[in-house]
Structures are given as structure tokens and as C-alpha cells.
């Protein structure tokens, strides 16, 4: 019976990582194929992931709250019913993926949170025994050894965290794994547990302080024995352990996340060597500056230049695809290796914070604007997840596409009648027919006639890519933000089919249950702003597409028909186009075609769609 390393699947275009928001199974659980195992939040949507096989969960490799790159093993499954022994052992590789570098004892950075401890799991704590005698109690009661506890590496690409809440104060006794502080990063809020039994000697950062990874958060006094123990465990734990007790599906295979030397050395001594972590990346200073501005982790890029030199173009491309900081091959390995390496070398340890992009928001805004001046009573909401993704997509669109918007009035009086009739009919079979499928029906033949609007621009190649399929993205307003599920291969689908597909997609989006297949791969987008109000809007193109059509409210208006003023149902359509690809005349003709079909919906019958 085979063991399966179940990796975080590619959940959608441009998605490079996901946050484990909720486990639906635990080690030892028997699962059936397609049974939901885990809920993962990406910057696009929250998705549920089902089991690929009937089997048993051997091990969960990531904790809730942890951000995992696509392709990294998150679950070890055993196919089939029971828990055959030998198998799991083979796959339960040591969490630290013990570095091949000659890393002295201090380098055994545990894989974050591979363990049984959901709460304290994510951060691999980083105690560093300090030679100096502790501030508190020497003498009676057993001496305490001071440990500088640094903000651990809480997740890939996370360079700093905000101390949101201290759960202890100086003088408090703490036990190992007891949550001591809550830290919010741009990815998630995590609770960090004490690495040892002991006492809090000193808290170095107040609530609200933003602390770079590797900077000392607090000084703990460890009971000497404990401190020694921590030290002793620095050596990579033999990970094969589960082999011996694998008769039952190995409960928690990975050794507990023992902390080890994340650098805590005094930054001021090493302020110079801020990029020891990426010393090996060939990139000119100006390129590194650009990368920092765009929030791209230069150390993770595969440079296109000689001997892997990273060019400005590489950085821009990485940023444009949105996956930059994490999309590089072996994303898991790279940062992990980067992190412990400096820690292992005493002279230049404190380098990491600077080596990483200091703050992720820059990803959303190239050449991030200066922070807005603070005003009394401001509330600050971290830019995260879907919001962050939207921010960067919209910025990218405005930065690349040459937008212009063409607006037309459509007399949809006939369509309103038709839809009323269709609605009554459809309701009988439980389908609610909106105007959207009619719009789709009208847009498809127009796109066939003007394929430039169903296209993308490949700037690198200097080519316009005409898409064969018509996959219509439908913008859906959700609590979390705008999501654009895609109705695929629209040609030939009936009104009823389109209606029900759309309803399903929209329902899932609103419930935060969008599936990987629901999003991405669109070729043209329809956005409906009409149900809220307004005359018309100028939509932003959903790059890499080149056109988007905005649908607006249908209102009764006085209309001149054959010399007489009559009341008609009028709707405005606004078509935003990327002028680099589509000229105004083409857009206008496209709009005329759509208008023709919507004003005389009977003509749709003539269309071979």
C-alpha cells in the first residue's frame, strides 16, 4: 500500500501559495476519495481540497495559519484502508530537510510547524542561549539562563511582524509552548509559544511595534536544564523515528519543532552584511533596489542572464506574474536554505530582515507611494489575501494596459420582455434567469467576429495571442472582495446551462468556497455594476485580457422612436479596451454588434452559438 505525499496543488493561475485555514481531518483519520481534507485560502479565494484516494491520514505537514507554497507536501496519506507499517517511515523525511550545507549545530531550523501543535506550531522558535548570566535570580532556586528569543521566520516572504498582543509580562513564569505573544504579519496572525520552561525576563518590543524577523522579541530565562536541553536538540532530530512505531498510522511523524539558532545577534554589529543571505545571487545593486521596491524576492529568482544573473526584466516579469517571491522552483527549499545559513555563521547573522523585501505591500504597488500622513482616528487595515491580490492586479492593469472606455446606450425593451417570458418558464425548472446569459449570448458572436477582443498581449514575444475558446469571466462581488469565476467554452451552451453554471459559480464565490477550477483562464470579462446604481462605470481590464464590458442598470427613459417620444428600457454598456491591442473603431464595431443583438434578441436565433 503506497504512501502518498499529497502536495498543495496548483489552485489557480498565478497562485503560488496558500494559507491553511482549517484542517478537516487529523492524523489517523480514514478518508474516502474526494472527502474534503483541508481548506486553503489563497490570495484569490478559499478552496477546499479533497482526498485523491481512499486511505488514511498519516501526517499533517502544515499547521493551520501556515502559508504553504504550491507543490509542498501538506499531507502524507496512505492509500488503502489500514495502516501498513513500513511505508510512512520512508516518506516522513526529517522536517528540517537537513541542510546539505556544513551547518554547525546551530543551523537546524525546523521546518515550520510540521507538528502536532496547532497553536504554537507555525513559528519555529528561536532561542539562543546567551552566555551572560540572567538578569533574574542567580543563586537560589536554580539559575536561569537568559535566552534571546527572536521573532522566528513565520512564513515565506515574511520579513517582519507586528506585535499585536503580549500574553505575558516580565516576571511571568512560562511553560514550554505556552503562547506568549501574538504577531501579525501580512499573511496571517500567529501565536508564538515559549521555547522553554522558564521566566519572562524582559519584553523588548511594545504592542504595535513592527519587528523584523530575527530581531529579539523578548529575553526569557530558561531553567538551566531546559536551556541545555534546547541546546542539545539543536542537532537535527533523527526523523526516521516513526518507522519503529508505525504499526498504527504514525500519529505525528515529525519531531516537535525544536527551535534553533535563528539569528539573534546584535544587528548593529553586522549592519553591513545585510545581504549575506543572497550574496550568491548575481544581481546588480540597481536590480536589487528595483526588486525591493516591487516586493520581489531576488534570491528566489532564476536569472535569465549569464550564470543566472538576475536582470531588471526578470524582476519585472516576476512581479507581473504575481508569483515572484514564491513561484521559483523549489520554493520551499530556497527560503529555508536562505534562512538558516546566516544563522549558522556567527559573524554575519543578522542579515535576514534586510535581505528579504521588508514589507510585502509593495507587491501591490510598484514604486510604493509614500505612506499617507497619519490623521487622528485613523484605522489601519492590513492589506491581505484577496484584497492584496486585487490591489496588485489592478495596479498592474493600469500600469500595463492603455485603457480607454467606450460607452453605448442600448434599447433593451425587447430583451426585457423576452427575459420576463424566459424567467417564468425557467422558474418552473428551478433556474433563475437573469440578463447575464443573454448578454453572454450576444457577446459571444461579437467576440467571434472581433477576435482581437478575445485576446492577450505577449509583450515579451511582441505578439498578440488570439484565444480559441471564449471563457467569460463574471465579476462577483463577495464579502472578501471581487472574485472573477469563469464560465468556460461558452459557445454552444444554452441559456439555461449558462444560467445554472453562473449561479453555481457565484454562489460558491459568495460562500468563499471557490474551487481551483472556477477561476483563472478567462479570455473576456463581464462586470455588472447595475444592480447597485449609477449611470455607468469605466471598468479596469482584468489582465492579461484586453477587454472588459460593464453592464449597467436598465432604466425606463424617454426615447425618441420614429419621431415620437416613448418610454423605453435603456441600458448603458461600457467597454474598456487595451488600446495597445484594440483600436477604437474595432471596439465600436464590436459594440454595435452587441447592441444589435441585444436590441433585437430574436436575431440571436440566427447565431450559430
Amino acid at each position, binding site marked *: 500500500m503506497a504512501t502518498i505525499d499529497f502536495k498543495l496543488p496548483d489552485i489557480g493561475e498565478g497562485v503560488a501559495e496558500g494559507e491553511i485555514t482549517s484542517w478537516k481531518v487529523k492524523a489517523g483519520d480514514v478518508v474516502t476519495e474526494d472527502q474534503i481534507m483541508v481548506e486553503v485560502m489563497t490570495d484569490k479565494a478559499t478552496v477546499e481540497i479533497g482526498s485523491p484516494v481512499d486511505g488514511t491520514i498519516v501526517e499533517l505537514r502544515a499547521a493551520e495559519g501556515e502559508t504553504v507554497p504550491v507543490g509542498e507536501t501538506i499531507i502524507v496519506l496512505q492509500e488503502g484502508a489500514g495502516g501498513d507499517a513500513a511505508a510512512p517511515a520512508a516518506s516522513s523525511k526529517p522536517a528540517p530537510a537537513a541542510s546539505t*550545507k*556544513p551547518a554547525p549545530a546551530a543551523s537546524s531550523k525546523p521546518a515550520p510547524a510540521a507538528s502536532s501543535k496547532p497553536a504554537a506550531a507555525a513559528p519555529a522558535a528561536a532561542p539562543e542561549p546567551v552566555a551572560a548570566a540572567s538578569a533574574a535570580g542567580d543563586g537560589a532556586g536554580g539559575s536561569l539562563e537568559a535566552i534571546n528569543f527572536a521573532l522566528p521566520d513565520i512564513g515565506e516572504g515574511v520579513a517582519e511582524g507586528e506585535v499585536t498582543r503580549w500574553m505575558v509580562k516580565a516576571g511571568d513564569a512560562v511553560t514550554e509552548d505556552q503562547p506568549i505573544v501574538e504577531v501579525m504579519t501580512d499573511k496571517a496572525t500567529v501565536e508564538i509559544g515559549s521555547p522553554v520552561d522558564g521566566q519572562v525576563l524582559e519584553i*523588548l*518590543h*511594545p504592542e*504595535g*511595534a*513592527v*519587528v*523584523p524577523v530575527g*530581531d529579539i522579541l523578548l529575553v526569557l530565562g530558561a531553567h538551566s536544564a531546559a536551556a541545555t536541553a534546547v541546546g542539545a536538540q539543536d542537532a537535527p532530530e533523527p526523523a526516521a523515528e516513526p518507522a519503529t512505531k508505525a504499526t498504527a498510522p504514525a500519529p505525528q511523524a515529525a519531531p516537535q519543532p525544536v527551535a534553533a539558532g535563528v539569528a539573534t545577534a*546584535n*544587528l*548593529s*554589529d553586522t*549592519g*553591513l552584511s*545585510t*545581504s549575506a543571505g543572497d*550574496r*550568491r*545571487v*548575481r*544581481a*546588480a*545593486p540597481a536590480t*536589487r*533596489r528595483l526588486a*525591493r*521596491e516591487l*516586493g520581489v524576492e531576488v534570491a528566489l529568482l532564476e536569472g535569465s542572464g549569464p*550564470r543566472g*544573473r538576475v536582470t531588471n526584466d526578470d524582476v519585472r516579469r516576476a512581479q507581473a506574474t504575481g508569483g515572484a517571491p514564491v513561484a521559483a522552483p523549489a520554493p520551499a527549499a530556497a527560503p529555508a536554505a536562505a534562512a538558516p545559513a546566516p544563522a549558522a*555563521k556567527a*559573524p554575519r547573522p*543578522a*542579515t*535576514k*530582515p*534586510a*535581505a528579504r*523585501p*521588508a*514589507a510585502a505591500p*509593495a507587491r501591490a504597488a510598484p514604486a*510604493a*507611494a*509614500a*505612506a499617507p500622513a497619519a490623521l487622528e482616528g485613523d484605522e489601519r487595515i492590513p492589506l491581505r489575501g484577496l484584497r492584496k491580490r486585487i490591489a496588485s492586479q489592478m495596479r498592474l492593469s493600469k500600469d500595463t494596459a492603455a485603457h480607454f472606455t467606450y460607452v453605448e446606450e442600448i434599447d433593451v425593451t425587447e430583451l426585457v420582455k423576452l427575459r420576463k417570458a424566459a424567467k417564468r418558464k425557467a422558474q418552473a425548472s428551478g433556474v433563475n434567469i437573469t440578463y447575464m446569459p443573454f448578454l453572454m449570448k450576444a457577446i459571444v458572436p461579437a467576440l467571434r467576429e472581433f477576435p482581437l477582443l478575445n485576446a492577450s498581449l505577449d509583450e515579451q514575444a511582441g505578439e498578440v495571442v488570439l484565444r480559441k475558446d471564449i471563457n467569460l469571466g463574471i465579476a462577483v462581488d463577495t464579502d472578501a472582495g471581487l472574485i472573477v469565476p469563469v464560465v468556460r467554452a461558452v459557445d454552444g451552451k444554452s441559456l439555461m446551462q449558462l444560467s445554472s453554471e453562473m449561479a453555481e459559480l457565484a454562489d460558491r464565490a459568495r460562500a468563499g468556497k471557490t474551487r481551483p477550477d472556477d477561476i483563472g483562464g478567462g479570455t473576456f470579462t463581464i462586470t455588472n455594476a447595475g444592480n447597485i446604481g449609477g449611470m455607468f462605470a469605466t471598468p479596469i481590464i482584468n489582465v492579461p485580457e484586453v477587454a472588459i464590458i460593464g453592464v449597467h442598470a436598465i432604466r425606463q427613459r424617454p426615447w425618441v422612436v420614429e419621431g415620437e417620444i416613448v418610454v423605453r428600457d435603456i441600458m448603458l454598456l461600457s467597454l474598456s479596451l487595451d488600446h495597445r491591442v484594440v483600436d477604437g473603431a474595432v471596439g465600436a464595431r464590436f459594440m454595435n454588434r452587441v447592441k444589435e443583438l441585444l436590441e433585437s434578441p430574436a436575431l440571436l436565433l440566427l447565431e450559430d452559438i
Partner: protein
Amino acid sequence: MADTPKQADVVVIGTGPGGYVAAIRLAQLGKRVIAVEREAIGGVCLNWGCIPSKAMISASTLVETIHGASIMGIDVKDMHVDVGRMKAWKDTIVKRLTGGIAELFKRNGVEMVAGDARFESADTLRVKSSSGDVVIKTKQVLIATGARPRELPNLEVDGERILTSKEALDLTQAPQNFLVVGGGIVGCEIGTYMAKLGSKVTIVELADSLLAGTDPELTKVVQRGLKKRKIDVHLQSKVSHLEHKRQGMECVIATPKGDVTVPADKILVAIGFLPNTETLNLEAAGVETDGRGHVRVDGRLMTSNPNIAAIGDVIGPPYLAHKASKEGMVAAEVLAGKQVALDVRAMPAAIFTDPEIATVGLTEEQAKAEGRKVRVGSFPFAANGRALSTTHSDGFVKFIADADDDTLLGCHIVGHEASNLISEAALAIEMGATVEDIGLTVHPHPTLSETLMEAAHVVEGHAVHIYQPKK
């Protein structure tokens, strides 16, 4: 006076090479900047450090060159050296440069407040000066207060006989007997130029080598230069006894070989630096320091207070003006909300001994300690035509390259104009250049810069101007 506080976006405390650069950059970025200075605009670098010492070094070197010119057939008779006028000339240079900064402040709208700054709270500073107190309310602060020479308890600096570098540079006569306590950069530089001006110089160093932290291969060449100038060097030694006489002093130096008594008219104490933090009242601002008083900062030069940054000597060694300036640039942009960090792969350093030392990147030892396989090559100045034709044939260029991918990791130069040669290597390291790249770059003949190209060829095993046996 202090009734209505001044308002600022950023207060820069200290106007040395870090602070003044940051203040101007902040002003360029649209900040309302107040710069506070308690001594002299320009800080140690411009007033009592880099610039004045280089003026005195170049003048004293000229003296030495003239003395040695007869080898080229140039005989100079009746040369008279007036150290007083030399010092006055040096002062004009200092004045010109510091005046330039004051002018730049004015043009950029940086306001100067003279006095000693002290935090009253994280956003309020009180500046004490002889003309009264000024209170400043500010959103952000940049600490650039630098460091000052450390003193020795048994050699109390009086500014007359026992000096720091500051007073030594202002001497108007070369002392007959000059004792330097501390064989670091400052001690070796000033000791050398005093010897060139005619002093009998003795250097006493506690450690077992001069210029601690420098590749010993390089230090050896400098030590030869000291010996040539009849400078006595006592390593692992210290001044154990000092007696003031009517004329000068008498010092007993405890050396490993026993006590040595030397006369001294002036004593220079140059044993290191202390950060200028204790009068700032940093606790009031929630700014942390390390055990030695250096302000602790992160990779973006921010202190434990998110509105306060610190740069330069006050955050710790190495104490380099150009490091402070670079940090000043970065910190200014960080404070202005830009997405930057201190991202420097290699910080060059120059020592103005004779010959000079200049280094950038890893030493051979450091590279190996990082677990790298290295290839090393050096090329002597003695095989360089230009070096010989300027009578400066001592020294060499040493490259440390990564054996796996040929990337230049470090460059160490001892020799004439080393300080002007190092930047090529610094650029190479920042660009991630390989040693091959340097070897393939044409270097003009006849120049000292050819030594870098040739050192690259040595690493690759095909040097032309020195013999390399085939492997």
C-alpha cells in the same frame, strides 16, 4: 525661549557624514528637517578625522618625497617645513568643506540648531545651548551622533601633552618624541605622518598585531613601512608608568621582553571609540542600546522605536564615514516611507598608512569560515611598471574568488593608492562579477589599476607578468 516648541517632520541629531547626508536627502524627499549639532557641522570626518588627517598625510608625504628625491636626481637644499602653516592650510580645507555643507543645508531648507540634544519623550527633544534651550516636537528622529575617542584611565587626555587625534591634528610643530598608544588605524596613520615630519615615533599596542582585523599579509607590508621610517612598534605592550618632567614626559612601556623607557613630548591616545549615546536620554524615547552603548537597529536602520532610526558610528563598528553616509541615505528613504533597506554586499575600507591598505568583501579566512571553496591570487606592485616608476613598488593585490563559480568574494590591496584602486573591486562584488570578468576588462597602461587585472589572471592561472608554473 522654550515656550513655543519648534515643529519638525524629522530631527537629525548629529551632522557628521551620516547625519548631514541624511538631512539633505530627507529635505529632498519633502520633509521638514531640523539638524542638531553640538560641536561642528561635518562631525569628526570633516573636522578632526578623514579630511584633515588626509591633508596632513599628503603634506607630510610630500616632505618625505622631497627628502628622497635625490634618487631621481633632484637635490633640494634648505628645505624648511613650517607645521604651523601646514596646519593653517589644512584648516582652510576643512572650512571650505564644512562651509559647503552649511550652504547645502540652507539651500535645501534644512534648519540648523546648535546644542546638545536630549529626548524628553519619543517625539520631543530639548536642545541645550549656551544661548538657551530649544524644544523641538517631531514626528521622526534620526540619531547620527557618532562616536568619540575612548580614553585610558592612566593616560588622561589633557589636550596639551596627552592628546586624542583631534588635538594631534592641530599641532603646529612636530614633537621630537611622539608616543602613540594604540596601533589601530588612527594610531598608524598619525604616527606615520609625524615620522615623515621628523618625529621619533613609538607605537604601543596591546594586541599581538597592528591594524587588528586586517589580513596579516597586508599588515606585514605596512609594518615594513613603519620600520623604514624608524618607528618603534611594541606589540603586546602597554604604558605602565608615566612621569611628567619639566620638558616632556618619560614613559615606561611594559613589553614582553621587559620594560622599555621612552621619552615623549606628546602622547596620542588612539585605542578605539565610544558611541555618543549617554547624553541623549534614549530611555525616554524607547530606543534600545547594546551593552556597549551602541544603538540597536534592524536591517532598515530602524531602532526599537518605529519612528526613530540610527546610523553611522553610533550603531557600532566598523567606524567608517562612507558607511555612515550610505546608511544616512537609506535611513532617510526608510523614514520617508520608501521601500528600501541597507543592501550592501561589501563595505570597502581604506587605511591611509604608507603604503595604503584598502579592502572590500571577505578575507580568505572569512570565506573559508563560511564553508566556501576559494581560489586566491595575488599580484605584486613590484611587477607593475607604473608602481616602479613612481618609486612605490611595495605591496600587492589579492583576490579571493569562489572556486565553484568564479564570483569575486573579496579584494585586499596593500600598496600605493590602494584607496583609489579598491572601488573597481567593490563594483565588481556588487554586480556579482566573476574574476574572469575583471581579467577580461581592458585596463589602461601604464597604471596601477593593471594590478587588479593581473591579479585576476593569477587566479585563473595565466598571469603574464609574473611566472606561474603550469599546474
